[in-house]
């Protein structure tokens, strides 16, 4: 099982699902649903906050949240 935090910078995967319903609901309503392409474009010092691109949108997520996002 891969999570978003396991991805290398720039690596593109397909979003599989969410391990935390609150994370899921928020991201779903932002238009980031299972089946879309997702990648981590860059991150802050020490990788604590991630700059994520998915489905044409850009969002900032914390490492903790990223560990709950499953990818294929």
């Amino acid at each position, binding site marked *: 099982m891969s999570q978003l935090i396991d991805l290398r910078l720039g690596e593109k995967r397909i979003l599989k699902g969410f391990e935390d319903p*609150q994370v899921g*609901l928020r991201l779903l309503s932002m238009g980031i649903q299972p089946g879309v392409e997702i990648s981590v474009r860059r991150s802050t*010092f020490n990788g604590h906050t991630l700059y994520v691109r998915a489905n044409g949108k850009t969002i900032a997520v914390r490492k903790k949240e990223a560990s709950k996002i499953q990818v294929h």
Partner: protein
Amino acid sequence: MIKVAIAGNPNSGKSTLFNKLTGLKQRVGNFPGVTVDRKTAEISHSGTDFLFVDLPGTYSLHPTSSDERITSSILVQPDDPDYPDLVLYVLDARSLEQQLLFLTQIIDLGLPVVVAMTMIDEWHAEEIDIKDDKLQKFLGCPVRRVSGKTGENIESLKDTLVACSKTLSKPQPFYDLQQQELFILEQCPSSSFPSGLSSYGQLLTLEHAKELDLLSEDKLNQLESIKAEHKFNAIKSQVHETMARFDRIQPLAKKVTTQITPSESLSDRIDQFVSHRYFGPLIFLGLMFLIFQAIFSWATYPMDGIEWVFASLSDLTRQFLPAAWYTDLLTEGILAGLGGVLVFIPQIAILFLLLSVMEEVGYMSRAIYLFDRFMSRFGLNGRSIVAMISGGACAIPAIMSTRTIANPKERLLTIFITPFIPCSARIPVYIVLVGFVVPSETYLGPFNAQGMVFMGLYVFGIAAAFLSALLVRPFISGQTSGFLMIELPDYRRPDWTSVWMNVKTKVGAFITEAGKIILGISLVLWFLASYGPGDQMEAAVQEARQEAEIQNWDADRTENYVAAKQIEASYAGHLGKAIEPAIEPLGFDWKIGIALLTSFAAREVFVGTMATIYSIGDTEDELRVRDRMAKEINPKTGGPRYDRATSISLLLFFALALQCMSTLAVVKKETNSWKWPILQFVFMTGLAYVVSLVAYQLIQAL
């Protein structure tokens, strides 16, 4: 009067469209219970009167933030004063799928909808186009393209609103409720839900009644027990509903959009620098530095102008009115107090102008992205940075800007520590005192030593703010927010109307909130400094005039000497002497005591008070005051009164103490209780006392 709610996702061009529709007729108020801006406007078109209410940007009616809770609670309560007759949905077609989620939810509430597609100027760059009529047919509601930027098609949109207001026809529901959802609704007595609510509206009420405070306690308990009895899993239901909607939306979006080309957008290229892990924070600090430079250089002229206006008014008043107590009240009390408030407007206006532009352009979310980790270590939020920077001009609008911080604990902590950030009122005090710590022509390498001490004081204030956050954090109840998950919108050109309205609101808040208090306290202090017990003041004036005669001083010098003796004999003077024993260990005497007391109205009053006490008359010129202070001798030591130890101690006191009644008043208003401003005052002033004490004693000992 037709009520139109303007709804849409955040960053969809909603505010821009609102501005274009309503011009400057908008009014800014509050949503009850939460301090989020409520923008409304009334306009007329073709004989129909409309009331527009701008609802907070929302991704979905299943709320995940306080903004979204407002929107949801309004749209599921037909009895709510803001419940609309018609919804104007703002759609950014560049992310059609996501934006359609909320729209289909609103349709399912049984509300008539008109869709306005914005950002059309950007379609060409993204190489997409939308088939309006197909979309209109799928949704069952009118769809109109508009340009929020150029105003293209706004009139046509208004015509559509008028037409729709006459029929108020509702589109077909979009989502079919599942078996278990219909079942659970049937189990609830019909009285549980307000009348006029669609099935979907009832489902939302069932799922969110508790967090949105929709029902009375017994109805709520009843619903909760029905849910428990039938093991109804609300979250599972919400997830299923959302995914079911997207299942229908996705193919629809494809049919309606032609040729989407994903592009390495301009925003991404800009972010390569701006959001870079090392350069990003550096760029941010650089921008902050530039902002401060801009504030201090651009603001000087208007500030001088305002000071000149009030000085002239004061002179004129003295010319036309006889020398009586009410003339003094008018000039030294009211005019001086008013002038002291209004003189800060240029700095505040410039700061908020620049901050608004940064927000409008989309940069602020990048700043939050870069500093979220750092800030949350202190129990603060990425948005706290905005408040802390604003605090560099004035804590009052800074504290008001914390309304955008959703989490109550993070917001309270931010409010608590913001006054540590050196505000513009501390600067005149610093200018006077820095000269005593470091002589002006010294250089440390290529750097001017005074400039460095100045910067050091800024760093000191910022450090004090963060350290206090750590100290105070355990004492505030509640949890800091678990989630970030914010959108970083594409960079865009700022909407100048929004910027202007923001500046106007912030400056207005400063004038009304701070202005009232500073004026009030100025009057009190004027009274304390102009009147004394019994006839001690008259006696002092007599003595002073006699002394002046003996010494054969000219008129000016005499008046200044008289003024100094007057303030000694006044209530303020007595208070100063009374606290002298308490402040002596800090290296202060009773004259400094008086100035400390008067500075509690507003810090910059320190300079004027010093001028009066040291008989230089009515001046605000820091350098003159400083020169005079330098000559003052400490009777106990025979050396200068303002030696290095006393000056450092005084500087530290001003850096840390909460000497601004207006700040306390605003904190009370924003936190709705006296507890926090009082705690803040005790904490900061107590800290100032201790630090000054330690500093003075240490430096003396060395």
